[in-house]
């Protein structure tokens, strides 16, 4: 039976009153679909996002840095797990979501299609990319879907450690030798604009935003979040003694915010369309890890089935009582 207009209206009232939606509650199909799309995209971003940083684990310049980076990338795998689990509560399996990633049906954050070229990129990614992600994720701690919101609370705690880790690397470099400082500035130049693009297109060009706001999935617009991020990051760059690559960046007394230059949305859409510097490599790395792991997953499944059969065969009391 099709849900009545009443149900949709009641749902809207329910979320507008800041109530959380739980897996067994009734929800509009479109709400469920939007969430599966968003949460799985978020999970995929964590998993694909491991790759550009894993690129430097074997070359971390100190044992301490190696451990911190490894722990950080491991956290991202954990975030992926929480998020896949929370999307599974909406009725889509992890296998299905992973298939959608591998066939290109599902997206992940485009930022991970840029290469990590120097050690300073570990600083810039942690500081800017995780910083931008936090801006979005703090908002999502209050999202209307309960399992997603609870996953985000845990994730946010770890993400703030990630951001500090990135900023610490930048600080070491900015206070280091001339070469190290140049390395830090170069990384900032390359990561600044893509980080601003992470918030997505401007509100008037973001088709799903209004509905997501009404459902309380999203609480702030892309432009609001982007502005908050810029306002927070400019003084951090100043503290490092590094220059943000934007000649139009200046404090606007009247607005109480920093003004910044126009974003090159052509670049953004080119990367989303699959033409970023590393789209092919990232997807290929995920596909091949999955394909090469097939025999391992099959073995684990076969072994578990054999074990279950053995347990059943050696449990005569259970059989007897069933008979």
């Amino acid at each position, binding site marked *: 039976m099709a849900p009545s207009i009443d149900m949709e209206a009641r749902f809207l009232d329910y979320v507008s009153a800041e109530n959380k939606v739980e897996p067994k509650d009734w929800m509009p199909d479109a709400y469920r679909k939007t969430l599966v799309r968003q949460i799985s995209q978020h999970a995929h971003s964590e*998993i694909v996002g*491991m*790759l550009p940083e*894993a690129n430097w*684990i*074997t*070359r*971390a*310049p*100190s*044992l*301490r*840095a*190696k*451990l911190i980076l*490894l*722990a950080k*990338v*491991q956290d991202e*795998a*954990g975030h*992926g*797990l929480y998020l*896949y689990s929370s999307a599974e509560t909406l009725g889509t399996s992890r296998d299905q979501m992973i298939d959608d990633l591998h066939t290109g049906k599902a997206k992940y954050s485009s930022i991970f299609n840029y290469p990590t070229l120097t*050690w300073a990129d570990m600083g810039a990614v942690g500081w800017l990319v995780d910083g931008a992600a936090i801006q979005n994720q703090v908002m999502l701690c209050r999202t209307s879907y309960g399992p997603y919101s609870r996953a985000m609370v845990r994730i946010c705690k770890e993400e703030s450690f990630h951001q500090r880790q990135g900023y610490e690397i930048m600080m*070491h470099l900015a206070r*280091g*030798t001339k*070469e*190290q400082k140049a390395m830090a500035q170069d990384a900032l130049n390359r990561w600044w604009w893509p980080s601003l693009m992470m918030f997505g297109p401007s509100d008037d060009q973001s088709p799903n935003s209004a509905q997501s706001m009404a459902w309380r999935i999203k609480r702030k617009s892309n432009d609001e979040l982007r502005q908050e991020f810029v306002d927070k990051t400019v003084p951090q760059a100043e503290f490092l003694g590094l220059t943000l690559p934007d000649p139009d960046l200046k404090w606007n007394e009247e607005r109480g915010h920093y003004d910044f230059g126009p974003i090159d949305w052509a670049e953004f859409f080119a990367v989303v369309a699959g033409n970023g510097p590393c789209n092919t490599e990232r997807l290929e*790395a995920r596909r091949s*890890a*999955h394909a*090469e*792991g*097939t*025999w*391992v*997953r*099959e*073995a*684990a499944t*076969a*072994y578990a089935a*054999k074990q279950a059969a053995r347990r059943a065969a050696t449990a005569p009391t259970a059989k007897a009582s069933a008979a």
Partner: protein
Amino acid sequence: MKWDTCDASVQYLLHLGDDALILGHRLSEWCGHGPILEEDIALSNLALDLVGLARQYYQLAAQRIGNGMTEDRIAYWRSDREFRNHVLVEQPNGDFGDTMARQFYFDAFHFLQLEALQHSSDIELAAIARKAIKETTYHAQHSSEWVVRLGDGTDESRARITASLAKFWPFTSELFEPSSVDRAAHAAGWGPDVASLRGPWLDLVQEVLEQAELQLPEGHAKLLRGKSGIHSESLGFLLAEMQSLPRAYPDATW
């Protein structure tokens, strides 16, 4: 710095630390590429434990060397001829079965080694071992479970893990052939007579293989001298990658 003439206790710590660092480094190469997300997390855990353990050994060694020696100088500024790890641990990851076979053999040895080191007359070394054996017990459980799972899983997994176990078998003999540093450490009461660990190691390995209905591999011991600094060709590449940044920017601190 003359690494091979420094204090015997330092040389022993370097040997122990090198095993942990090199194997931890190899495991960290899996990060982001595991067969399943849960295993990505588990392999990273092993790597974190082992690199963390290497730091403890190196820090103690650095403290004993003095003169501003640091854990990072020990890790990043020695050449492959100055590393003292077993050749087994530097072997490339291969597929997941290879990684698990390598890990399984080493974990059983590492567990027995740490069990003995807990009672070392070197009390600082004993303290490190007491902490590490808890982690290593878990490592051994993890790799044993995978050997059983792969051995008793599908025909393909059984064939693969059989081949992997056979491939690394010849590398295990080095674990039980004492180097001059092993002998000195045993004589001083710091560490076990590694030859005496062979029997208990075989028991541990055999018990797991029986569960998986796998045969103990046959094959001759390789002539290996990793503990004396004569490694396989793969260690040079591993170190070239690992040490590249500090060596490219010798004046920098990170």
